[in-house]
Structures are given as structure tokens and as C-alpha cells.
């Protein structure tokens, strides 16, 4: 296997089955895409993304785990297009030659509309060059397309020898030219995407930003200067300034697609990050990044951590404790008043939250850090952040249980706490979207249990069927109406019966709920919450 891997040139964008162990420790050969290749003296390593698996499982693999026999070379239209498996090829240089020549026409033709319309397949067919332009705007790996395939083969292989020369020039050129999207997603062999910064987000980002913004928050204010810049010369726009998550992948380039930290040591724990996090770049090369358990400062070595601990006297998150029951406490931290901690927390959280964006400062957020107390101090278990003022009824921006504490009910506790806060505020709330897979599961589970809890406890009054409105459920739980409905639907409780909607509780739902509630011993006690909501609108923006 290794031999064959060496003989065939596996480049970025190639797909092939890669060996991985599943949870039962059985061998699986899921299809994976090569995102990056790196040469370590003596061997090569491949950064693979398992198709249809979450990014968090992406990893560096040795050649012997690659099933080279089933290697598929990247299609031109693929998410990470490359040369057609030509030796020494680099994905983009010839293509760029073409683009360069076409730029002028394209600029006038496509630039104005680019911000508004999503490129369609139809447009792709229009011309070869347009296809290269527009295609990466569709983030989904597209199916093989005959037009592009032919296009790809058009490029003479000989050009590729210039790859490295071309690279610098290209980057340069791309800064000034419109056509950045063709390479936006494209990985770079040895130096994962460092030089791609300029590229990331070309027009496709803009497209998506607009898409993203317009339906959901039409009022989003894009800074004018940047706005006009974008439309005129293709410098991508800054993301919206509200919220903490991006759904649009606008800033998702090859750099952010790959994990950059190997391991984080935090207190007793060693965490394997799941996603990219913008810790200082010089620290990403370290085998282990050390964090102070209490202030979350990042340090390059154990020695530094030791030294830091002589100076850091924090034993709990640097905020006010607003809840304590048993060993569980919650601390409230103002993202404006305590920037350092907030930023450190965000950096850590980013390692485990794919969609979290750290583009902007932490000022408009409050951070609620859940800790577990022992003799050493208040150890962070998880946290959620919350916008001081949300225009969209979000009561949670980002939420995370640190991996060592996952699947032990802490996530639900965090969620419960967030709704307790909403109850105090007298509002309903919902988590900011998009949810992650784990987020969806956790929230659904929480919603289900919360709603079922209410439904089960309804007592018939005056011998009549107990009944409840969705609004009532929402008010009781502070869960936003839409979430109530989706949960009822997901649980299949809503039925139309004899001209009216009814809620029905099936046996297995009731049993399942009872079992789950039996296991759910961690609960928030509202009596232990000491929280006075502030009216942030009266305090000036942030």
C-alpha cells in the first residue's frame, strides 16, 4: 500500500478510501478527500477529510492507510480542484493563466451581479472561464461535470512545472484581481494555505454573505467603506457583526478547514482540538499547547505554564458567580470588561466549535462559564456565550461542554441554565444558528425532556382532558415557539384528530422519557440563581 502510494502522486483534492477505526474498533474504509500533504523527512502525511463525516474527525494519516487502488482524481469542479493527477502538478497555475486572460472581460461582466446572485449551473455552462469563476461558490462538492472535465484536460501538463514560480505571482495577482474564488478552497501542498489568505473568500463569499444576511437579518449593517470596496474590487466583505457563528463558510479556506493545534493541555486534561483555532501562529507548531486552567492563557511550554502559575492567582473564572449548587457554579463574564479571559475562552472554544467565528471582538457578549469545584479551584466544564442584546431572540450564541465532560449531562445543564436566565429575563430564547450536530442533539434532547415533562405533569382539571397551548409551553419553558413546535413534531406528538390538533403521548415516548429523566440527575435549581438581568440597550451599545 505504502509503495503504491509513493508511486502514484496523491495530491490535494484526490478522493480515496482511507482506513479508520470506528467506535467498535472495527476497520472501516470510508471515502476521504485529501486536503493537504506534508513531507516529513522519511515519509509523507496526508490530511484527510472523511466524506460525510464531521470535520472533527479529519486527521493526518500515513500513506499505508490510503487505498490507492480506488483513488479518484479531483474533478475540476470539485470542492478542492486540482490537476488531473499529473505529476508534480499544482492545482491552479494553468487555470490561472486562462483566468488571467479572461479577467478583463469577466470583471465587467460578472462583477456587478456577483454580489447578488448565486451562480447557477446554467451559468457554468456558458463558458469555460465562467465555470471556473463561479463554480467554487457552491461549497458542496459537485458531481462530475463533463464540461469541466474536458476543460481540465485542456490544460497542458507542461505548464505545471512553473507551479512554484507561478505561486508567488499568482498570489500577488489575485490580490489585485477579481478572480479569487477559483482557488479559494484549493489546498496547497506543502504549506497549507498560508499564502492563501489573500484568496480566501473571493466573490463566492460575498455571494453567501449576502444570501446569509438578507433573508435573516436584512438590517445587518455592512460597513460602508468595505461594502463599496467589495463590490468594486473584489475584496471580500467582513462578516456581519452580530452573532457569533457563521453558517456561510465565507471565511472557510484551506487554513481554517484544517486543525492547526495538535493537543491542548488544560488542567488535568489533554484535549484534541476538533477544528481550527486562531491561536498565535507560532504556537501551532507545538506538539502541546498549554493553557492555564483558570485564566486560560496559552503558553508554549510546561515551564512557561509553571512560571505563569506563580503569577496567576485565579482559581475561578474572573467573573461574578451567579449560581452555585453543590459543586456546580456559573460565572458571568462581561466580554467587554474582561477581554483577555473572554478571548482566551473563545480561542479554546473555537477548537471545538466549527462555526464559531472570532472575527470580531468579544464586547457584545456575556460569557457564562460553568465550573465544577474541587479543592484546587473552580474547574471549567463548559460555557455558553450570549449576546447582551439579541435582535433575533437568541439566548445562546455559542455553547460548549469541554470534551472531557461531554456526555455526562453537563451540556443539558448548560442549556437548562440558559433557559433559566431567559426565564428571569421574561423572554423566550433560542440558540443561535447554525447548530452543530452535537448541538442539535443536545437541544432536541433538552427540548424534548422539558416539553414532555410539562405534558406529563398536566393533570386533568374538572375531569376534562388536560390541554395546553404552544404559547403556554413556550412561556413556561422560555423555549421559543418555533422550537417547541419543531420538538413536538420531531417527537411526533402533534396529530390532527377529529378536526383539531391534539398532542398524543405514545408508550415508548413516555417510557423513554422516564428512563431519561431518571438518568438526568444534574439539574439547575432556580433558587440558587442570583441573577439580575441588565438592560443593555440603556447602557450604550456594548
Amino acid at each position, binding site marked *: 500500500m505504502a509503495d503504491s502510494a509513493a508511486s502514484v502522486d496523491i495530491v490535494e483534492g484526490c478522493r480515496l478510501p482511507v482506513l479508520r477505526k470506528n467506535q467498535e474498533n472495527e476497520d472501516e474504509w470510508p471515502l476521504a478527500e485529501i486536503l493537504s500533504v506534508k513531507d516529513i523527512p522519511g515519509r509523507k502525511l496526508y490530511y484527510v477529510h472523511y466524506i460525510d463525516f464531521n470535520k472533527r474527525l479529519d486527521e493526518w494519516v500515513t500513506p499505508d492507510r490510503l487505498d490507492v487502488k480506488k483513488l479518484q482524481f479531483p474533478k475540476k469542479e470539485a470542492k478542492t480542484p486540482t490537476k488531473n493527477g499529473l505529476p508534480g502538478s499544482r492545482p491552479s497555475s494553468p487555470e490561472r493563466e486562462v483566468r488571467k486572460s479572461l479577467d478583463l472581460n469577466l470583471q465587467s461582466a460578472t462583477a456587478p451581479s456577483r454580489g447578488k446572485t448565486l451562480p447557477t449551473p446554467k451559468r457554468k455552462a456558458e463558458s469555460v472561464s465562467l465555470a471556473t469563476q463561479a463554480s467554487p461558490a457552491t461549497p458542496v462538492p459537485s458531481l462530475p461535470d463533463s464540461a469541466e472535465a474536458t476543460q481540465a484536460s485542456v490544460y497542458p501538463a507542461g505548464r505545471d512545472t512553473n507551479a512554484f514560480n507561478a505561486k508567488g505571482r499568482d498570489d500577488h495577482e489575485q490580490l489585485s484581481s477579481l478572480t479569487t474564488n477559483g482557488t479559494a478552497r484549493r489546498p496547497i501542498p506543502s504549506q497549507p494555505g498560508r499564502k492563501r489568505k489573500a484568496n480566501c473568500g473571493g466573490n463566492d463569499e460575498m455571494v453567501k454573505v449576502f444570501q446569509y444576511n438578507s433573508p435573516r437579518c436584512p438590517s445587518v449593517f455592512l460597513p460602508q467603506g468595505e461594502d463599496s470596496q467589495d463590490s468594486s474590487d473584489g475584496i471580500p466583505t467582513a462578516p456581519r457583526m452580530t452573532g457569533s457563528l457563521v453558517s456561510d463558510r465565507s471565511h472557510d479556506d484551506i487554513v481554517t478547514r484544517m486543525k492547526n493545534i495538535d493537543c491542548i493541555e488544560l488542567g488535568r486534561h489533554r484535549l484534541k482540538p476538533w477544528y481550527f483555532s486562531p491561536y498565535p501562529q507560532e504556537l501551532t507548531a507545538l506538539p502541546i499547547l498549554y493553557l492555564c486552567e483558570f485564566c486560560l492563557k496559552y503558553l508554549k511550554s510546561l515551564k512557561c505554564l509553571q512560571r505563569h502559575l506563580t503569577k496567576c492567582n485565579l482559581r475561578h473564572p474572573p467573573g461574578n458567580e451567579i449560581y452555585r449548587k453543590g459543586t456546580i457554579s456559573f460565572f458571568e463574564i462581561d466580554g467587554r470588561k474582561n477581554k483577555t479571559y473572554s478571548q482566551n475562552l473563545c480561542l479554546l472554544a473555537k477548537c471545538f466549535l466549527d462555526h464559531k467565528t472570532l472575527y470580531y471582538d468579544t464586547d457584545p457578549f456575556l460569557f457564562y462559564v460553568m465550573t465544577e469545584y474541587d479543592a484546587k479551584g473552580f474547574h471549567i466544564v463548559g460555557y455558553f456565550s450570549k449576546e447582551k442584546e439579541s435582535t433575533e431572540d437568541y439566548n445562546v450564541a455559542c455553547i460548549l461542554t469541554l470534551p472531557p465532560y461531554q456526555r455526562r449531562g453537563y451540556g443539558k445543564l448548560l442549556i437548562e441554565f440558559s433557559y433559566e436566565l431567559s426565564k428571569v429575563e421574561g423572554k423566550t430564547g433560542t440558540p443561535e444558528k447554525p447548530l452543530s450536530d452535537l448541538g442539535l442533539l443536545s437541544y432536541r434532547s433538552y427540548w424534548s425532556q422539558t416539553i414532555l415533562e410539562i405534558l406529563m405533569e398536566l393533570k386533568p382539571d374538572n375531569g376534562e382532558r388536560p390541554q395546553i397551548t404552544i404559547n403556554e409551553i413556550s412561556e413556561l419553558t422560555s423555549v421559543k415557539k418555533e422550537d417547541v413546535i419543531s420538538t413536538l413534531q420531531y417527537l411526533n406528538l402533534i396529530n390532527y384528530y377529529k378536526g383539531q390538533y391534539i398532542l398524543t403521548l405514545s408508550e415508548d415516548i413516555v417510557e*423513554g422519557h422516564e428512563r431519561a429523566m431518571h438518568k438526568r440527575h444534574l439539574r439547575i435549581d432556580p433558587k440558587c440563581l442570583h441573577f439580575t438581568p441588565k438592560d443593555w440597550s440603556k447602557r450604550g451599545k456594548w
Partner: protein
Amino acid sequence: MSKLSFRARALDAAKPLPVYRNRDLPDLNDCVSINRAVPQMPTGMEKEEELEHHLQRAISAQQVFREKKENMVIPVPEAESNITYYDRLYKGELKVPKQLMHIQPLGLDNEQPDYDMDSEDETLLNRLNRKMEIKPLQFETMVDRLEKASTNQLVSLPEAKVLLNEDDYLLKSVYDYWVRKRKNCRGPSLIPLIKQEKRDGSTNNDAYVAFRRRTEKMQTRKNRKNDEASYEKMLKLRREFSRTVTILEMIKRREKAKRELLHLTLEVVEKRYQLSDFTGEVLSEVTVPLAEKPAYIAPVSLANGMRHKAEMKIKTHKASLPHAYQVSIKDELPFDFVRPKKKYTKLNPPRRPGRPPGHYTVNKADIEQYDFHSSGEEDFPAPLSPPSEPDEENDPDGVFAFRRTAGCQYLSPCAEQNQGLLREHPELAGLDALRHRHSLTALCVPRRCIGPARRRMGRGGRVILDRASDGADTVLRQLDPDVVTAPGATDSGSLPQRSPGPRCSPGSSLSEILDNIHALRWRCFRPRPSQDHSQASRTGSMPCRDTGSLMDPLCCAGGITEEQYHDHQQQLAQMQQQQLAQTSTPPAKRSLQPELNITQTTCSNDCTSKTLDSASAHFAASAVVSAPPQGHVNNENKPHKPSVNGILHPSGTSRPPHSTTTTPSTSTTSMGGSSSSTTTSHSSGPRGPGRSSSSTTSSSLQSLPNPRSHVSAVSPANSHHSARPSAPSPSALKLAATALGRVPKVPPASTGGTLPRENHEPERLNGISETTLATEVT
């Protein structure tokens, strides 16, 4: 079951929903088909991710089993929780208070260095600890400060010195180490920091840039533009405040240093008092080695240093010196040196660089932005700031300290003198104050009288005439310089002045003026006639001057023969023609040598000659000589006929009378006014008088050991001269001698001790010199 002819009504959130158990509704399954009437709610996930294998598996597992199955959960990268050294790492235990923890908003910043030592640093520390003690925290603080003071450019060593204020060896070691480490550092800083955005937008897509400011957001409702403007204003305000803070910081530091200087001075005085060092011998012994040690550290060059110098010069001109010093010279206590300090207008420019860079707490940019001298003491009448010394560690004013400039003389105001004059000659009350500051001046090249003027020594030894307009200008214009010239006047023939025509004073008649001149009520300077038969050069002195003060230059004449002068002048004329700076010295030398011989009475050859040399150079430099020949009215410090020394000195420093007049008010025509003419005085050549003096000395003895001693040889003379005209040379000699590390042996005779007062000179001089040196010590 009907084919559902109705559409299911929309789900109404406000409508009560009855809750059933499935077992109560056996026929429910029939109705399931309409459930789709309920709107499908989005999951809130990204479509793409929603399809991910493990999620789908988990969801379906939950649907089926109604609870999580172990093998159906979404797999995540593993985490370990078995750090064995945890307890060693996080020491100590925490007792939790009963109450909820509350944090004080300001209690957080405990000023700890952000830099954390690594093992490499530890190695260095261990090495350093063999020689001295340095604690990790100290080291971290140092590196922290260095890091934070550096931007793209590293802090320089002198800056680091200011920044760290540590022992030199330690500082050097740490600094060098830091520079090396920083160079090898992968990141932009040794303290790892999140990449900052750049305001130009170039980092908009840098994945490593995080936490950008969202100032643009500033949700300003209507007048967004307006608000942005005010935001800018706030930013500006903030900048300015921070500058203010910087300035205040520096002032604070300066004042501290001043205080320290005072304390040290006091200490010195006390010590001397204890040692009964009233004569200053101990002090001079102690100071001499110090003085000769050329402990100059290269100064931090300041972009605008020159400007400062210039401005300071002007300032000091303006500063009026209290005449108190004239009194104090008599009743001065031996250990009182603070006042004596003021008695000296010292020339000590070569020492300017002798300032350890450490005191430049200011960075260049700051200095360029602000002119601090206005806050300095040079604005105060308190005239003479302590001279800058090579070891002036405690100089309080740093860059802005008042420093004397070579070739500049700083003299006390002549207010009192004027008063005295008026007292004695009430008839002169009507005379313009101008005339007391200016002398009637005549030129030789356009042979005419230019009216009241005063002479200054400009840069490069140029002689500048500051002319003042006077009522009598018109009259003066008609004045024949020769007529004006008193019999004793000498002509240096040296002033090739081209100056515009003088102005007339309608008020005074020619004859009156002449009268005044002849009566010595009005000084008159004119070029010396080439044939001078008066006894040697003589300077016109204001007769009425009491305490002789600066006026003095006059008293010369004495020992210099006519031939000498003649000789001298011829040479000067030659030089003038050549206009050569460097050639200027040899002739001067030649001319001076005779004088030297004359003066060598009892003095040690070296000392005297030096003094004389400098003095004579000055003399040669003095192109303008005061005319009126006659006697000196002063009773107190009568300008007797002193020995050559006495003569030479004053003449050499014949500028004082002029500079005394440099109160700002007079200078209508002065300072680069069109009427002020500038010429190079032959004798001094392109260099300052001090310089030329030193070069002249080289004939008899090699040039002075170092600038410092040379300066002290000259400056005390000048200062003394200005202070006490009666016996300038002895003091000068004495001081020069002390400065040179010789035991001063100034025989009263040499000073032409015709005056009874002369006898006291040595002691007084001792006092003076000692005090001068005392200030140097501090």
C-alpha cells in the same frame, strides 16, 4: 374515512391542544396522514452537515430506541484526563467562601509581567545567578518591558537602559540575550499574542487575525457621519491626553532628579564641612581625577538638538542675572557653593555630550513634538544653571538642561550698573538707556561711525555687531571715527564691516556726543589706528561703572607694548585678508608670545602661559576696543594698571560689556537684522574664542589635555572677569590651574597687585574655584 376534503388548519400556537395518551385513542393511526399540515421546522443545522453520517445514525437511533445507545453516539476525538503532574503544577488549595464569588472590577490587574520564562531563559538565569542575583520575576519583568516597548523594531540598548533601570552588567546580558532570542523567535513577539487586525483591511481574511474591533458598527441612528466625526475627535483627544501623560511623566522624572541632585550636593557640602575643607583643596583633589577622566558616553543624538541649543542660547541671553552674585563674592561662605555657582558664567560646552544616555527618557518623537524648554529653569532669572559635568548623573533636566555654549558668555544684568552710573552722573539720566548697553562704534573699512552697537561673538568666531538705532544716529553718521577716537584708542584695523548707514538721532548734537564720548560717558569703540601711540591697547571703560562689573575690559594697556600691538595688528590684517580660519592661530601665537614672557613672573610657567594664551587670544579676537583712555572712576575695583595678564584678560573677553547689554529690549537691530553686520574676526578665526585660545597655547605648550580642562581654563577667567574686573587674571589663572590639576600659585604680583584688594584675591579665588569644582562634583 373521508378523503380529507378539508385542509388542515394551520397550527395555532394560541389554541389549546388537548393532551392524550396513545392508548386512549385507538383510532389515531387513521389521522396520521394529515400531520404534514404542521409546518416543517428547520433543524437549524447546515444542510450539508445535517446529512453527516454519524448524526443521521444518532438521530435514527434515538428515534428507534428513544435513548442514546453507546455505539450510536457521534464520535469525537479523544480527550485524556490523566495529567499526573497536575497536583504539582497547581499548588495550593482553595477554600470556598459560603457566599458567591464576586470579583472586584479593578482587582484583576496585578501588574504581573505577561512574559513567562521558558527553560532556555532558565539556563541563562542560572548562569547569571552565578554572578549576581536575579529572580525569575525580575527577569520576566525585564523581558516583558522590552517586548512591550518594541514594535517592529527592537528597543535599542540605550532605550533599554532607560526602560529597565537595572545594573549595567545585568542589563547588558539580558538585553543581548533578549535580542538574540527575539531574532530566533518565530512569532512577532516573545509573548505570544493573537494577531491584530490592520486597519487598512489587509487582514480582513487572515484566519489568524481574531477579535477585530467593531467600531464601524457604532450604531448611530441618524447622524452617523456626525458621530463618526466625534469618534475621531475622541480618538484625537485620547492621543493628546496620552501625550500629556508622557510629558508629565518626564517632568516628574526631572523633578526627582533635581531633588536628588540637591541632596547629593548637600551631602557634598556637609562632608566638606566635616573635613573642614574650606579651601577646596580636598575637593579639587577629589575632582581632578574625575575631571580628567574622559568619561563621555556617546550621547543619544537628538534630531533637533541643534535647535535646542540655539534656543537655549537665546533664552539665556534673555535671562537676566541677579546682581546678587556680586555681593556674594565677598561674604561668601566657604562651603556655600550654591550661590557661587551663579557667579560663574562658565564655558563648558565640550562637556555637553557627557550625559549618560540613560537620562533620555524621552524618545525622539516626543521631543520633536514638544518644546520643553519653556518649562525648564532657563526661564527663570535664576541665571546660571549648574554647569553640566561629565559625571552629571543627576542632572535633572535631561536633554533640556541649560548648558552653556562655547563662545557664549552669560552675564548678569547691568541694571545696577546703570543705576550706579546714573547715580554718579545724574546728568546722564537723560541719555538713552541704549547707550549704556551699546557703545558708539566706528568701523575702519568704510571708515565711519555706525552709531551705537554692541559686539557679539557669533558662530565660528565671527564678530557680530548688533546695532541699535538711536536718536543721535544722524549726528553720529557725520562723526569722524578718528575724531571720536580718544588719544589712547587703539585701532585693531580689524573690522571689515559693511553695514548699512547709521541712523541719526535728532536729539543730540554732534558736539554733545563728542563731549560725552570724551568724558567717557559714552563708550566708544572704533577700529584701532594702525599707528597707535597710546600706551598699548586700551579699552575705553565706562568710568562710572561701579564694582567694575563687566565693563572693565579697559584696564588693559599695561604691559603690552606698542610694537607688540602693531605687530599683532598687522598680522591680523593679513589674516583677515586670507580669511582663513586655521591660519589665524599662528600669527596670534606669534603676537602673543611676548606677552607670555612678560607675564611669567612667579607663576608656574604652564599655568600662566595657558591662561595668558587663552586670554591673549581673546584679546586678539577683540576687534573692537573701547576708546576712552582715561582713568577708572571706580573706587572699589579700580581698574588699575595691571600686569599684562590683567590687560589681556579683559580684552580677551571684551565682549562682556556688550553681552551685558543683551537684554531683549535693546535688540532692535540685533540678531540677524539687516543692519547687523557679520564678519569673521581674524583673530579668533572660524572657531570660537575658546578654541583659538587653546590652539594658541599650543605654541608654548601643547594643546590642553582635554577639552574639559581647556574650558575650565578659559571659562573661569571669563566669568570672573565679568564679575570682578579688578583682578581677573589671578582668578583665571587659579582656576585654570586647578582645572589642570596644578596647585594654584598665583602671586599677587602677577596680577599687578596695585590694588589692596588684590591681596584677597587668592583666597577668594580659592573659594571660587572650590565652589566651581564642587558643582562639578555633583
